[in-house]
């Protein structure tokens, strides 16, 4: 046996491939995520998203909120991010999103989790070795209330390259 750790190592692979996305398959995604006020404020200011709901607590309270509102685009990207290892890390470019709805406001301190169902897949004609997969992703808060849902489409690598 080699003494070199590199020669003895096995890669611990991540992600899924096209063949894993049987339509109707449900993924309950890992980890979850509590959004914090500093992240939400930084996200809004770095993206120049100048709506004071997202960085002025007094302004948000005048509008009926308990304090700063989490930027909906942070909610979207976080719910999306939680799905990546299961859905698209093995993959290819993110092509688009349809029918995204924000159902409820999210506040710093809320904990998000995500789940997805495979809606549709087909082998790509134009990208050799890739398929096109569409998932319906839903994001929930700690009270199991749905806060966001959307349909996402990606190129996904085939495990068995077809020639």
């Amino acid at each position, binding site marked *: 046996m080699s003494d070199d750790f590199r020669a003895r190592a096995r890669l611990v692979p991540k992600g899924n491939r096209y063949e894993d996305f049987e339509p109707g398959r449900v993924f309950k995604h890992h980890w979850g*995520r509590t959004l914090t006020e500093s992240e939400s404020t930084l996200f809004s200011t770095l*993206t*120049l998203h100048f709506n*004071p709901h997202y960085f002025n607590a007094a302004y948000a309270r005048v509008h009926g909120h308990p304090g700063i509102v989490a930027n909906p685009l*942070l909610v*979207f990207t976080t719910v999306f991010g939680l799905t990546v290892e299961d859905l698209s*890390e093995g993959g290819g470019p993110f*092509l688009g999103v349809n*029918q995204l*709805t924000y159902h409820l406001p999210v506040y710093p301190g809320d904990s998000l989790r995500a789940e997805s169902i495979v809606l549709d897949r087909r082998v790509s004609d134009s990208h050799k070795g890739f398929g096109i997969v569409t998932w319906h992703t839903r994001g929930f808060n700690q009270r199991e209330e749905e806060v966001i849902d959307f349909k996402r489409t990606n190129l996904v690598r085939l495990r068995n390259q077809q020639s």
Partner: protein
Amino acid sequence: MKVSELTGRHNYFEDFTVGDVMKHARGKTVEPMEQVWITNVTMNTAEAHFNEHLTQSMPYGRRLGFGGVTISMCIGLAAEDTAENALMELGMDKIRLKGPLHHGDTLYCYSEVLETTDAKQPDAGIVRFKHYGVNQDDKHIFEGERTVLIKRRSHWGDK
């Protein structure tokens, strides 16, 4: 607190006319730190967004920006004109990533007013925008629709 003094006076619901196209002032060069910060803070584990060494041997030869950053940054560039007086973001549709935004690329944004409709509540209306993003080479790399509940001046202009 007089909230109307904290936001602009030209972006209430009444100010949006179907067919208007805005070119938003200010572009933004999206720094590698910002790309990686948003990617990692939002739990995105795809290393093509944050492993420069790996991506040197891939087709683009460098890190690829996360599409969620392109979407968020383009809507952010449009926000002072189309979200500053928003009460709530309602949704998005027909989001298309048409080309890559690499670390260090610059993004500019345009917005078109597609539709204005009454809301259930009397103090606001619903505007549907189409946003367009272009890079430093004027290449159209992003588009998508966004629906927002925006204050009416008639109710909020002096509050």
